[in-house]
C-alpha cells in the first residue's frame, strides 16, 4: 500500500512537471503582436528586456539566429562570415533601437525583395511551414530582444 501511495505521488508530480514544461515551452514560442511606427518597432517585443551577452551567442548559433551566415560581424573567433548581407560593424550607431527591432523582426516590411528571414515575423504570414515549426516565429521574443540588445552594442 505504501509503495502504491509513493507511486501515485510520483506520477502526480511527474505529470505536474511535464505540464509545467509544456506550458513554459508554449509561452516561450508565443507570438506577441507588434506594431510599426515610421519603419520602426519602438516597444520591446513581448515586453522583454534584452541581454547583449546572450544575444552574442544567439547570433552565432546555427540553429537560432545564425546571423553570421549572411553578415560579417565583429566576432573574430568564428571563421567564414557570410557576404550576402551588409556587414554589421557599427550598426548600433547607424540605426535606432526601434529601427533595428523591425529589421530583425521582419526585414521584408522594409525591403520586400530581401533574402533575410523575419526572425519575429507573424507566423500567420508564412506559407507551407513544416509541422515542426508551424505557428512559431524563428526566435522567441526574449531571444529576439537579446539579439537587438547585442546589435545596439555595435557602435
Amino acid at each position, binding site marked *: 500500500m505504501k509503495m502504491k501511495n509513493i507511486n501515485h505521488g510520483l506520477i502526480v508530480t511527474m505529470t505536474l512537471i511535464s505540464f509545467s514544461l509544456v506550458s513554459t515551452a508554449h509561452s516561450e514560442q508565443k507570438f506577441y503582436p507588434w506594431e510599426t511606427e515610421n519603419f520602426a518597432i519602438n516597444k520591446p517585443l513581448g515586453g522583454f528586456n534584452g541581454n547583449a551577452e546572450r544575444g552574442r551567442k544567439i547570433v552565432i548559433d546555427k540553429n537560432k539566429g545564425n546571423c553570421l551566415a549572411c553578415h560579417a560581424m565583429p566576432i573574430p573567433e568564428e571563421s567564414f562570415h*557570410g*557576404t*550576402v548581407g551588409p556587414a554589421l560593424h557599427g550598426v548600433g550607431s547607424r540605426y535606432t533601437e526601434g529601427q533595428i527591432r523591425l529589421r530583425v523582426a521582419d526585414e521584408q516590411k522594409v525591403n520586400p525583395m530581401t533574402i533575410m528571414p523575419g526572425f519575429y515575423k507573424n*507566423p500567420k504570414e508564412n*506559407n507551407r511551414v*513544416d509541422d515542426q*515549426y508551424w505557428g512559431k*516565429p524563428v526566435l522567441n521574443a526574449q531571444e529576439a530582444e537579446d539579439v537587438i540588445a547585442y546589435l545596439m552594442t555595435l557602435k
Partner: protein
Amino acid sequence: MIINKKFTTLIFLLPVLFLNSAAARDLKSGFEYLSPSTREMQNDEFANPGMTAVEEGRVEFHRAGVNDKTCATCHGENGSKFDLKKIASYPIYNKEFEKPFTLQEQINFCGEEYLDNVPYVYDCVDLVEIETYVRYLARGEKVNVTITEELKPFYEKGKKIYNTRYGQMNMACNVCHDQFDGQRLRGQVLSQGHSNGFPLYRLGSGKMTSLHARIKECFRSFRAEPFYLGSEELISLELYLHLRGNGLPIETPAIRY
C-alpha cells in the same frame, strides 16, 4: 516632327532594351563556383565518385527485364542509338499521359511497357542510377528544352513555385539564386541554381543526389513542408529550371558541395 517622333520612341525604347540585356545575363553553371581541385575531380572520370553511379546505371541498362529484353535492345549497346539532343531536351510533353515526362518517368515507362518490369518508385536509387547513366551519355550536350503550347501551364506553375516564398524562413528560390549568386553563406558559395549537373555527387553528404531530392533538401533547410518526390509541383519546377538553364552543357555526374 517625324524625326522628333522617332526620337521619342527611341528614348522610350532605350530603358526597355537595357532591361532586356539585364534579364538575359550570363548563365553560369555550378561548375564555375567550384575550387580548381574539385573541377579537376569532376572532369577526371577516374577521380569522379559519381562514376560509380554511372557504372551501376550501365549494369541496369544492360540487365534483362522480365521478357528478357534490355534497354540496349532498342537503344543499342551502351546506348549507341540514343539521340543525344533528345536526352538534353527533357522534360517532354507526353500526349498519352497528358503531362510532361521527365527523363526518369520516361525510363520507368519504357521499363514497364517494353521490358514488362515492375515500375520503380520515383527517385529511388536504381532509377536515379539509370538516369545518371543516360544523362552521362549526353555529357556536353547543351540543355535545350522547348516550351510547347501543352507544356505552358506546367511551365507557368514551375515558374510560380520558383518565385514563391515558403517555410518559416520565408525564402524563395529566386531570392537566393537570382540576386546573390557568387556571394557566401558562411563557407558556402551561392550558385545560380542550374539543373545541368543533376543527378550529381555531393561532397557534403557523399551521395548521388537527384534534382528532386536536392530541392527537397532546400525546402527542409528553410523549414518548409517539401513537395513529395515526383509530384506535379516538382516536375513543373524541374521543367522551369531546365528551361532557365537552356544552353548550359550537361555535366552529369557533376560534383558539388
